[in-house]
């Protein structure tokens, strides 16, 4: 029952991460870097290379790309380098959907500003590069280690954890606890549309940890047998809230209402200077506008929201019911006339897929408000309450 694994027709292994880069990026990057970076350095390409192996998180990949930009730069003054960096940063921020990229760019910008001055330019540039590289190669992976070390204390023997989607930090924490011979049982949500929960399942069962995939809609159902909720994050915002793959907010709401502790894991390089007032208030580059201007394929991860093929195709209303994203008004019209634009196209293909418009309004991330989070475990030391996270951020950015 609880193991409602839904191995349906999962899209064949979502490429790198659910939120990771789409296949068709070359067009945009080619045209953009051509005009953006006068030296012809392809910052987006560098970013893509960095993110490709699937081990590097978005902020670090962005920093790596910027370090490469500094290396390739032929500017001879700090100002020149700064302006090139700004252009590169803008190119990254404006095309990448992950907020982690923005966080990484902000971090690098601050580092660049703080380390400025003192030495002559060539040695400054060299130290910038070496520090950036060592940060990405040594400090950043250590962050995750540190978090796992801190978070493992929260995991008791014989405890049941619910996690959402796929987070390397969460997995590392669980594996660490496993190595300490703690018996741990994990529920993981399927996390549509990326379905990265299946990946978590894969990794954990391969390591011999009992893991069950539950439907996103079954979160409330399993919550009563769960001891704690542990999630990763894409970014931590100034309010102390969490930007994470869509569905985290509802997991947090359910956990709160059932009195289960909700812990978030976040590396400090994911701290983002932004204060969202609502779910829609995120600085994610709008897809529609970039579409109209560059006329290229979307930057959005093309993981089609598929519908189980076992459902009979002749019943669009049922399919629609399983699709939480269609607007109520369109549901009404669909039940009357099944074939209208904007409904799952059942006639042409065997598979039921969402239309492009439906995918566009489909969010990839949501914001978990700080009042729902018990602790954010970071590499900064003792677990922080969301309030202290925001205080830390304000102190960092206001200096």
């Amino acid at each position, binding site marked *: 029952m609880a193991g409602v694994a839904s191995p349906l027709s999962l899209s064949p292994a979502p490429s790198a991460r659910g939120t990771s880069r789409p296949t068709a990026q070359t067009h945009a990057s080619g045209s953009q870097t051509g005009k953006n970076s006068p030296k012809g350095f392809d910052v987006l390409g560098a970013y893509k290379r960095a993110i490709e192996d699937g081990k590097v998180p978005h902020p670090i990949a962005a920093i790596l790309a910027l370090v490469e930009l500094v290396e390739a730069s032929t500017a001879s003054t700090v100002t020149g380098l700064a302006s090139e960096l700004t252009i590169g940063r803008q190119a990254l921020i404006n095309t990448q959907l992950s907020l982690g990229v923005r966080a990484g760019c902000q971090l690098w910008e601050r580092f660049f500003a703080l380390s400025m001055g003192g030495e002559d330019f060539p040695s400054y540039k060299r130290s910038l590069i070496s520090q950036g590289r060592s940060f990405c190669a040594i400090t950043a992976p250590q962050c995750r280690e540190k978090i796992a070390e801190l978070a493992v204390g929260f995991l008791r023997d014989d405890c049941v954890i619910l996690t959402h989607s796929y987070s390397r930090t969460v997995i590392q924490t669980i594996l660490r606890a496993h190595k300490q011979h703690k018996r741990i049982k994990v529920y993981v949500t399927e996390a549509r549309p990326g379905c990265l929960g299946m990946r978590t399942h894969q990794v954990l069962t391969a390591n011999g940890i009992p893991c069950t995939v539950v439907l996103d809609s079954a979160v409330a159902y399993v919550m009563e047998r769960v001891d704690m909720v542990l999630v990763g994050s894409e970014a931590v915002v100034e*309010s102390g809230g969490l930007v994470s793959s869509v569905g985290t907010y509802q997991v947090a709401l359910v956990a709160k209402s059932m009195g289960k502790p909700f812990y978030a894991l976040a590396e400090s390089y994911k701290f983002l200077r932004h*204060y969202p*007032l609502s779910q829609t208030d995120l600085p994610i580059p709008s897809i529609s506008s970039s579409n109209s201007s560059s006329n290229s394929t979307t930057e959005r991860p093309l993981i089609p929201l598929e519908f189980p093929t076992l459902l009979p195709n002749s019943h669009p209303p049922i399919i629609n019911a399983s699709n939480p994203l269609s607007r109520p008004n369109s549901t009404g019209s669909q039940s009357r006339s099944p074939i209208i634009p904007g409904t799952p196209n059942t006639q042409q293909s065997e598979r039921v897929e969402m239309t492009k418009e439906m995918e566009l309004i489909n969010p990839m991330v949501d914001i978990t408000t700080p009042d729902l989070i018990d602790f954010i475990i970071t590499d900064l030391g003792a677990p922080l309450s969301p*309030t202290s996270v925001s205080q830390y951020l304000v102190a960092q950015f*206001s200096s």
Partner: protein
Amino acid sequence: MANETPSESSATSSQNKQPKQPKPTQNAKPEKAATGGGAGDKVKSAKDLKKEKRAAAVAARAVSDVPGSNEAGIGGRPSLNTQNSGIDGGRKGSTFGQTVQQHHQSGSSSGAGPSHSGAGIPKRPNNYSEPSALSLSTIQQNLFFSHLPKQEFPDTSAALTTGKLHPIIIKLGVLMSSGQLRGSNARTMGMMSAFREVIRDYECPDQAVLWKDLPIYLSPMIAWLETCRPKGVGGGNAIRWLKSEINRLGEQGDRSEAEQKDYLVEAIGLYLRDRIEFADKVIADNAKEKIRNGDTVVTYARSSVVERVLLEAHRDMKASDPGAGFNVVVVDSRPLLEGQQSLEALSSAGISCTYILLPLLSSILSQADLVLLGGSALHSDGALYSRSGTAIVSMLAKEHRVPVVACVETYKFGEKVVLDGVSTNELGKVDQLLINPNNPKSNIQTSKINNLTPLHLVYDVTPPSLITAVCTEIGFIPPSSVPTVLGKASNVV
């Protein structure tokens, strides 16, 4: 005794608001009765009253030991009371006595507790009449708000004759007091520019040192401005900054008087520019990002910063897309009706506006996307000190899950913690309060009714839990981060 019945409500309220006082009454009462009624109270000297109170406090302690006494818990508070009477002398004491009388006439219905009604306190004779024509300020002293500074029109002629006040300061004081210069930004800017003029005109006496003499020269002016209108947290911060700047002149030494004055004049200019003008600009830049096409933005009363945010957001939106726009709902309330000025500025800029009074707000808020508020101060716990009514707006917004953004410059951050709007506030003018614009004939003559207290508090306190975010010149911060900013205040700007 026709006015006995209405007096009950006022007596009840005063009784509620003085929970620390029931004790003294028990003891003081018989003595007063012995002196022969209410008129006797007035002649009693402050000294006598103090004595009485001390005795009462002792008695209170004794009574509180009696098990089952319902007032045992408040035995520890009379100190506040004695302090008050010490400050204000006999007048205060006498009004206190009247409060007590009313309180007893209204009997046990006011919830005074069984210990009072059963104690055999002598009742006033039925033909006793209240001392007539209490002035407004006396009535207000009766109340819970008696600690607040009285609002009196400043005595300009007396101020002029002292010779210690620069004319520009007197002019400024009158403007502030009359309400022509309103809004904490405007007042702070006015005050600092006035002091800039004062410093320009100032001539240091031969035997004195500038950095020692100037603060002494300025302090009567600061005190006089304070009597015209309390300067608030922002103004207080600015004055403190000015004094520290003057002090720093002492450390620097060997500079001519003219140089030192030039330095101060320039520093004040920089302060005004950086902490207020530039801060407002940055706040507007930050906050306008949150206003999107088609939004409905709610504002309350008038705030120069909020006005600027809305105007700039409108300008930017029109520049990028002529068809785009947003709606503003200006919420206003009596008696100041400041929102009308705001409305004028916004609608003349072409923003589509709706004007409502506060009672209608709950119906409007369900359609709102954002509430933008200004403020007079932001206390270190994140509580917003702003025009009275702001707390209601934020409360309703929270209820409707509309984000509330307070736009406050960091110079208005105060290090105090204020728990309610009672301990710190200002008494506003009450002359407009009882005037009914729809029916001028029904105006209640305040001077004829002595048991009526028209009360107008200028500010209220919005607790931090009702504020989603604070927009400052260092960006958006949660109200909980105010101490972090305060700790770094010296580094900011």
